[in-house]
């Protein structure tokens, strides 16, 4: 399969692994954060941690869009979905995410709510046009990766004059999340594997502050084994040479300036919230998007009374520490016991891109002696 096989070639992977061993400096422990949940998933799926020198530690960042939605927002979504006039359209992986009292959209659906899985917000708009008697609400979730599709859908809804469609907007921004992690006093991250898909939209320049203000290198990477290992090699080289720059190792997809049309659509349709709560990380200033005033008629939060409940993350859960690189999934007392992919307690166990879920699904045999029984 082209564009996949060449990036999973075992010889190429082993060649980069050898390069990594030559790049580490004896005795210098290096903590690198892969920001994106897609990277976390790929690292475990392909068993890449086994190929890293022991001086290199990977920390799993906050870039799992499903995981970072706080429980209060899930409950707000459920309360909209349970209205009899509403058809609630969502990406499939949000359906199992538990809100407060561990209830999910999947359960709301089983109890009678009209919840439908869509693969694109345009599919949700299609439902609204086919079923004009229904109030169709799309659950907008994701970073700058998925936000442009939501923006284009809202533009189309306005152009077509579709009045029975709205968006429950939970889109978030990667830059402020990185800043929150860098500002956290205990955090010691030496460099970042930058997100691939987000960067196709925003480009590489929004990461400049990480280098200039915090002196940490960033390498934007794709999702195949050679992509990820190559990014680690570039980071080690920068650290060794005392540089802190943004490098683009995903040039086959990412342009430095990003995608101007997508950025223009985001600008027109969304406004930045003063702050937004992230599961595991708490409220982060200027980190979330809302529907802009010009599109208020298509904003589900304007159209329906939303309870706006705040629900604290469970005390036993250490997701916040995992996301900031202070703890590994197995360090958490409820990992694999009270918190499993079927019945997740914390954010990192929720989606297959979450650090704990990836670790549980693919890697728990590697640390069996550390596992709570």
């Amino acid at each position, binding site marked *: *399969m082209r564009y996949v096989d060449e990036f999973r070639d075992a010889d190429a992977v*082993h060649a980069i*692994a050898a390069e990594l061993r030559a790049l580490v400096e004896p005795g210098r422990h290096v903590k690198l954060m892969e920001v994106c949940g897609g990277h976390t998933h790929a690292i475990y799926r*392909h*068993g890449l*941690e086994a*190929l890293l020198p022991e001086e290199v530690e990977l920390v799993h960042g906050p870039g799992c869009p499903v995981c970072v939605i706080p429980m209060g927002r899930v409950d707000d979504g459920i309360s909209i979905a349970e209205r009899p006039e509403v058809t609630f359209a969502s990406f499939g992986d949000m*359906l199992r995410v538990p809100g407060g009292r561990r209830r999910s959209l999947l359960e709301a659906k089983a109890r009678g709510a009209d919840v439908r899985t869509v693969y694109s917000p345009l599919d949700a708009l299609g439902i609204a046009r086919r079923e004009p008697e229904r109030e169709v609400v799309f659950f907008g979730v994701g970073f700058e990766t998925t936000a442009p599709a939501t923006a284009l859908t809202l533009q189309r809804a306005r152009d077509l004059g579709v009045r029975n469609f709205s968006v429950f907007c939970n889109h978030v921004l990667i830059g402020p999340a990185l800043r929150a992690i860098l500002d956290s006093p205990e955090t010691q991250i030496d460099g970042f594997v930058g997100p691939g898909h987000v960067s196709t939209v925003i480009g590489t320049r929004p990461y400049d502050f990480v280098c200039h203000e915090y002196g940490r290198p960033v390498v934007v990477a794709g999702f195949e084994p050679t992509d990820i290992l190559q990014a680690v090699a570039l980071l080690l080289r920068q650290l060794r040479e005392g540089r802190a720059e943004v490098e683009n190792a995903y040039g086959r997809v990412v342009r430095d300036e990003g995608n101007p049309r997508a950025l223009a659509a985001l600008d027109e349709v969304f406004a930045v919230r003063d702050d937004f709560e992230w599961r595991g990380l708490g409220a982060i200033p200027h980190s979330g998007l809302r529907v802009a005033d010009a599109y208020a008629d298509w904003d589900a939060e304007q159209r329906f009374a939303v309870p706006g409940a705040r629900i604290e993350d469970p005390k036993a859960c250490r997701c916040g520490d995992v996301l900031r690189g202070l703890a590994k999934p197995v360090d958490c007392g409820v990992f694999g016991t009270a918190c499993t992919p*079927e019945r997740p307690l914390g954010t990192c166990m929720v989606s297959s891109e979450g650090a704990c879920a990836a670790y*549980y699904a693919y890697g728990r045999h590697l640390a069996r002696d550390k596992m709570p029984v």
Partner: protein
Amino acid sequence: MSGEVVTLADGAGGKASRRLVEGLFLEELRNPMLEPLGDAALVAANGTRLAFTTDAYVVRPLRFPGGDIGELAVNGTVNDLAVSGAVPIALSAGFVIEEGFALDELRELAASMARAARDAGVSVAAGDTKVVERGAADGVYVTTAGIGLLDLRAVLGVERVRPGDRVLVSGGIAEHGIAVMLARGNLELELDVESDTAPLGGLTAALCALGPELRWMRDPTRGGLATTLNELAAGAGATVVLDEESIPVRDDVRAACELLGIDPLYVANEGKLVAVVAPDSADAALAALRAHPLGAGAVAVGEIRADEEPLVLVDTPFGGSRIVDMLVGDPLPRIC
């Protein structure tokens, strides 16, 4: 169970389904014939050993490339008998039909069942029909039950699986699930993937000739190869180690899985066989499978290893390994 009501995850064939079956149905209905929870129950009567099974079909859409609900309803039940080491004799078919369903379409489904039954060498010997109000069912649901005569050469049982035994697969995986998903038409992917629905009696009979060297067989339907192998690991109390590169997946199926972000190990099959055989008989078993048109792509994908914690592990081409867990949640409801 996931809350107080049934959710779609409870029907997906993964962990939740297992809890529903073990925690509710087995609790209430427990008896020695049901207890093993195999693909078919083994029944002895008047000195004859029979296999007995049933399965319900709710696939949407009713027709998809490579098959339809009628063919699926015959092959699925025939295969549950075949992998239990039985030669299918007769099936029953129950139809729940929604008011307003076109008679022409019903006739086509019945004709398709007849063709599948002929191919499998089995008769649909009994049936029942119920009609419900519009909206109370989605077109038509079919339930089939079947009996088969046990092949006395075979001595099958998950408890007979030993460390060192080889795991064989009869051909490319994930084709049925991807074909149905594409047939739903909401993905706008143009790929020619057909369901692999087929009767496995020829393949299973060829393997039964190995006698006790054949340990265990299954057809990996809902939940895919991953879920079936997890049941194997749990039942055998051993670890199943797979070699990632040897798992057969057609290129276009693999491409579709990559695009959709689905692991082919979790996608349903309706005409594939997984078998565990003694190491010394692995070559003979592969030759027997490959001699049959449905087994031309048969390969060894892994082996059984002794371990205190039963798991399914995949060795990646890069020297790492990962766990292959049971399916959690449901990527694709109503696949069969």
